[in-house]
């Protein structure tokens, strides 16, 4: 039986190191991916999202109402970005996802407060992502109980009795039971598509080059655009199968209430699948071998999953991370899918998220076609 020898082992070790050094891209990725993870997890991710955009429907301009609003703002969770004049306007803001909360203070707030009638403040929340709204709602509840402890003194101190002087009524829209799956399962559709579509197509052209079939393909009259689109179309079909599977699972296994138009989801999915395929194809024109292609796909997938609002609330991230996240197709697709499936959004509601997707597809395709070399030069 052959015996183990160190010099043979060493021969393999040396060879591996030499090969590792030759493949600069892989080497770079081995350093780049941990760095990116450090940055994203260390600085961008925040599971206690603050400064959530909030619309105010102020029916009472009195000092107590103002004090309550000020206290909410000071809690750090609510950023009063909009004023809503009517209930309809407030509802529309929530629907489009422009605000996370609407605070309704009734016109007779002061009067009823002073009479000790425990006036109700209605806090409407877009609860489709329980992780985003949870901490803010908890803070608001604590506030409602203790807010006027200081202001209500003397004869009014009797109002400080528990339960507090105001009643905070929380109306959680879209996902009233705060079931995390309702938010995660539709989002998963985007994540699964990103993961598979980018990886599969990232390999598509690299594989031809690695196996030598590229030379043959280049020698035929086939145009770069034909190669690209031809390689993309089969995977669009695969993508649609994935979408269908996830929708079926959402409906029958996770019992997610699918309130919106499935047709709209399928239509937008086309754009999103195309975006990911274009990214994959672009990677495959850049990568020199299949390993590099897979790494590039991973390099794209990591920020997609972390910065898109899939895993962590988008609004909890610092501005630079939100900005980065906005460049990723998954971010917009998540908002669309959640909007349509959970909130019943229509085409007009999702329009603001559509054009970034379109732009992304156009840019990625253009880069891909440009990078695809017609010759072997």
């Amino acid at each position, binding site marked *: 039986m052959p015996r183990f020898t160190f010099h043979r082992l060493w021969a393999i070790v040396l060879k591996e190191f030499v090969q590792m050094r030759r493949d600069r891209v892989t080497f770079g990725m081995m350093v780049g991916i941990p760095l990116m993870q450090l940055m994203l997890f260390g600085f961008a991710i925040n599971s206690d999202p603050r400064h959530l955009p909030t619309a105010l429907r102020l029916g009472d301009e009195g000092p107590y109402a103002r004090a309550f609003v000020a206290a909410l703002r000071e809690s750090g969770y609510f950023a009063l970005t909009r004023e809503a004049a009517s209930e309809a306007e407030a509802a529309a803001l929530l629907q489009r996802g422009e605000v996370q909360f609407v605070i309704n203070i009734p016109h007779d707030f002061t009067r009823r407060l002073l009479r000790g009638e425990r006036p109700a403040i209605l806090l409407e929340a877009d609860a489709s992502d329980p992780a985003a709204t949870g901490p803010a709602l908890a803070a608001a509840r604590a506030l409602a109980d203790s807010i006027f402890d200081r202001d209500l003194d003397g004869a009014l101190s009797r109002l400080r009795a528990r339960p507090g002087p105001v009643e905070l009524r929380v109306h959680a829209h879209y996902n009233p039971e705060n079931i995390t799956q309702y938010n995660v399962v539709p989002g998963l559709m985007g994540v699964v598509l990103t993961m598979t579509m980018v990886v599969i197509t990232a390999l598509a052209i690299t594989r031809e080059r690695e*196996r*030598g*079939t590229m*030379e*043959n393909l*280049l*020698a*035929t009259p086939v145009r770069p655009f034909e190669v690209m689109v031809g390689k993309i179309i089969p995977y669009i079909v695969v993508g649609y199968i994935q979408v269908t599977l996830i929708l079926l699972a959402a409906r029958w296994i996770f019992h997610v209430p699918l309130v919106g138009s499935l047709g709209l989801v399928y239509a937008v999915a086309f754009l999103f699948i195309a975006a990911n395929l274009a990214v994959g194809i672009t990677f495959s024109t850049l990568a020199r071998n299949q390993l590099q292609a897979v790494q590039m796909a991973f390099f794209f997938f990591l920020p997609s999953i972390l910065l898109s609002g899939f895993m962590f609330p988008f609004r909890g991230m610092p501005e630079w991370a939100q900005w980065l996240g906005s460049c990723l197709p998954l971010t917009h697709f998540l908002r669309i899918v959640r909007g349509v499936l959970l909130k019943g959004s229509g085409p007009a509601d999702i329009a603001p998220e559509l054009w970034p997707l379109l732009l992304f597809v156009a840019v990625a395709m253009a880069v891909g076609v440009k990078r695809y070399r017609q*010759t*072997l030069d």
Partner: protein
Amino acid sequence: MSAPAPDLAIDVRGVTKRFGGRAVVNGIDLQVRRGEIYGFLGPNGSGKTTFIRMLCGLLTPDAGAGTCLGYDVRRQQDEIKRHVGYMTQRFSYYEDLSIRENLDFIARVYDVPDRRRAVDRSLERLGLGKRSRQLAGELSGGWKQRLALAACLIHEPQLLLLDEPTAGVDPKARRDFWDEIHRLAGEGLTVLITTHYMDEAERCHRLAYLAYGNLLTRGTVAEVVRDARLTTWTVTGPELARIGRVLRGQAGVDQVVAFGNTLHVSGRDAAALDAVIGGVVDDAHTWTRGSASLEDVFISLMDTARDNFA
């Protein structure tokens, strides 16, 4: 478009390609007539593959110009691709497709009219019919080569560029392959073929020899041998290695090459060579004076090229 001589399938001048500052193909002129089988020879790394890739539009020449089938090699690469069949040095069809699927794919890409018939005909003609469902990756070298030839003929090209099509193929299959090439040439197809085999070189109508990117000689076999002006003595008998050591390095002896049980001693200066041989000739061996074989000529060309260019 410059008016190309209608009887020339390939007509290029000064074709040059550099990789990293090194001229891999250095100012090559080549004229190939229609219907001709043109051999392209040269040692490894001499630039044959690179030159062929420039002809069919896969690489852009750094300098030089010309036409391929009357189309400009720099500007009309799409036209050229449509009418040229290129067989790459490395097997480059899809190993995970069957023979028929590969042929069908290529036929579609070239938009071959009546595709099914064309594929069937090509399967039949190359004797691939019974294997048509086999995956290309499972084929032996010889069958892969047949598939590759079938595939690059399917769109009925006017020019075949074959890059070492017979490397690793057995002698019988090579002979069949060459019979097929001659039959195709008889039908008017032009063939440019690279090879390292002398017997194949001798089956070409004309040939060119390349070394270090430079074209050293060209013409028919007879012309190439004649132009080399090489005299060769053939020695058979015992202890050839010793005789070789004695002769090597003597003035007038340019090369001594062992071919199995014979020794080829060649020189460009016939008188000087004869004088040297006259000094060592003996009865134990058979000494025959004749003209050089093609292989002697190529070895001599390679040696001179090494001195001049390397």
